[in-house]
């Protein structure tokens, strides 16, 4: 992105950089021109990187004490909690870290939805993000199985049974996933392997995500392209680094609150009972971050169609750049979209709540309406809205709303040139 060729100052630096241009990369990341109007919703990329590294570091240390065997897993987790030095801290950070990771990723995704960050030319960044999100769900699900409590066991049973909905080969696939005729030791050991692998896949995708981001550069709250880098941008360091750092500190306060004051509030008490294949807990619910999709699964009365609806609800996001027909990125200039956006936010929250409630009576009815609306938003409202909506005129540049703000285009242009 930087428009100048970089040469290291020192002789040794130059020698090294000619052979492996790592210093050029470091210089690009430092000088990377960033829109100067980015608000705090843009700090979640950095926060998510922090979450991933936290999960990898705490996960590696937990793996030094955990035993992936159906007879010993539950006890080894209790051993970590009681005997291992600071084991309780590391495990609580890891368990709550998963929730914090999803909290941050949902804010990050909904920021994209509001400011149209998924639109051209940023479709690939968005799709890589959706793949990361899918991998996160897989990692979180398999990680939840490892303590081998009741929720672990029955969550694993229910989720792997989703594949039995596939016609003809479904049962065979489920047996293959289990490595037996039920969730058992072979299932646990392979889940541990994959749970260990996935974060590193995510790390690789994060590199691609950032690489793809650095090609067109950041979107911004007004959603227009950078007109003049010298006026509309600031270098990533120190401006964005400081801002991201401050936001990260605020985020860590929330994180620490859960770890130190409510470490089990986001979990289920049933998971402190060792897995028992003969008894299903009275009320099986996934972790909070999967609840909206769980509600969609349950709101369809047919087994196969329920699974199809749940998967579509996630995969529909991947084609969002083509479903949204509006050329205007930011919701700030789309008065109708802005309202539908907030209805969608409410819809997803309602789905999440319904996912936690028993699937019966009024709860089921509301979940069905909310499911229908979810698909309506993406398949009907977004395509039509882009063609029908009357948008508010865009500012001339990122700088204009601040400095050159004038209802008169000519005046604004004149003022802009004066500022230069």
């Amino acid at each position, binding site marked *: 992105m930087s428009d100048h060729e970089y040469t290291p100052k020192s002789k040794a630096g130059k020698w090294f950089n000619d052979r492996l241009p790592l210093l050029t990369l470091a210089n690009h990341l430092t000088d990377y021109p960033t829109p100067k109007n980015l608000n705090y919703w843009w700090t979640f990329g950095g926060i998510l990187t922090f979450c991933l590294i936290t999960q990898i570091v705490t996960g590696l240390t937990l793996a030094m004490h955990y035993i992936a065997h159906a007879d010993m897993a539950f006890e080894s987790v209790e051993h970590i909690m009681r005997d291992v030095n600071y084991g309780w801290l590391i495990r609580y950070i890891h368990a709550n870290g998963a929730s914090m990771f999803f909290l941050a990723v949902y804010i990050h995704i909904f920021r994209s939805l509001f400011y149209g960050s998924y639109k051209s030319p940023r479709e690939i960044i968005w799709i890589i993000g959706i793949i990361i999100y899918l991998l996160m769900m897989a990692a979180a699900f398999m990680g939840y199985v490892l303590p081998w409590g009741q929720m672990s066991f*029955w969550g694993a*049973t*229910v989720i*792997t*049974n*989703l594949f*039995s909905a596939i016609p003809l080969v479904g049962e065979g696939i489920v*047996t*293959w*996933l*289990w*490595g*037996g*005729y*039920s*969730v*058992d030791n*072979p299932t646990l050991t*392979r889940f541990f392997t994959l749970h260990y692998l996935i974060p590193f896949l995510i790390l690789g995708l994060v590199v691609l995500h950032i690489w793809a981001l650095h090609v067109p550069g950041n979107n911004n709250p007004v959603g227009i392209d950078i007109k003049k880098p010298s006026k509309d941008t600031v270098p990533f360091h120190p401006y964005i680094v400081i801002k991201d750092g401050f936001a990260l500190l605020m985020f860590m306060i929330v994180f620490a609150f859960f770890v130190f004051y409510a470490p089990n509030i986001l979990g289920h008490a049933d998971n402190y009972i060792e897995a028992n*294949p*003969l*008894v*299903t*807990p*009275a*009320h*099986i619910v996934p972790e909070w971050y999967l609840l909206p999709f769980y509600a969609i699964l*349950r709101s369809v*009365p*047919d*087994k196969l169609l*329920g699974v199809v609806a749940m998967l579509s609800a996630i995969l529909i996001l991947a084609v969002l750049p083509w479903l949204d027909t509006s050329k205007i990125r930011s919701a700030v200039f789309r008065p109708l979209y802005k309202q539908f956006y907030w209805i969608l936010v409410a819809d997803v929250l309602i789905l999440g709540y319904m996912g936690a409630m*028993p*699937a*019966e009576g009024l709860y089921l009815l509301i979940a069905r309406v909310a499911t229908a609306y979810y698909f309506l938003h993406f398949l009907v409202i977004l395509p039509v809205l882009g063609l029908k909506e009357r948008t508010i005129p865009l500012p001339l540049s990122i700088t204009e709303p601040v400095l050159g703000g004038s209802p008169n285009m000519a005046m604004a242009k004149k003022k802009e040139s004066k500022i230069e």
Partner: protein
Amino acid sequence: MSDKKPERRDFLFTASYAVGAVGVAAVVWPLVDQMNPDASVKALASTEVDVSSLKPGNTITVLWRGKPVFIRRRTQEEIAEARSVKMEDLIHPEKDEDRAKNPEWLVMLGVCTHLGCVPLNDKGDYNGWFCPCHGSHYDTSGRIRKGPAPWNMEVPKYEFVNANTIKIG
């Protein structure tokens, strides 16, 4: 490409790709198949259960291949109820006579055919079983009557070794 006559080199390319594809498939298959049930898992094929202490109206649950199996000694009312149901009222029509050869004994996998939870005994709208996970109701023959499950609870292969012992598998 399309106008050109195939040359010896094109043949070599195609042959190389074909051999390469077969080689990759041959290497991938063991890596995929290692995840299927292994010999030690398959070896646990059958279980014998002593049912002499079971009174009418009681159910015991035993583990077979890691899955719960319900063995219920049914009361006369339950048998009558199961046998009087019309086939057209069933989601997955199966005669009770076919599910319980000896009407007093119902043996089936205690696994909900929806997503694999263990249904609860003596619950639900049909006096049989009720699955707490997603609300499937089963009747006194273990047949699905209401809810998202697509099939009746499965009846495994079993036999009476003698008057008191059932061999499952």
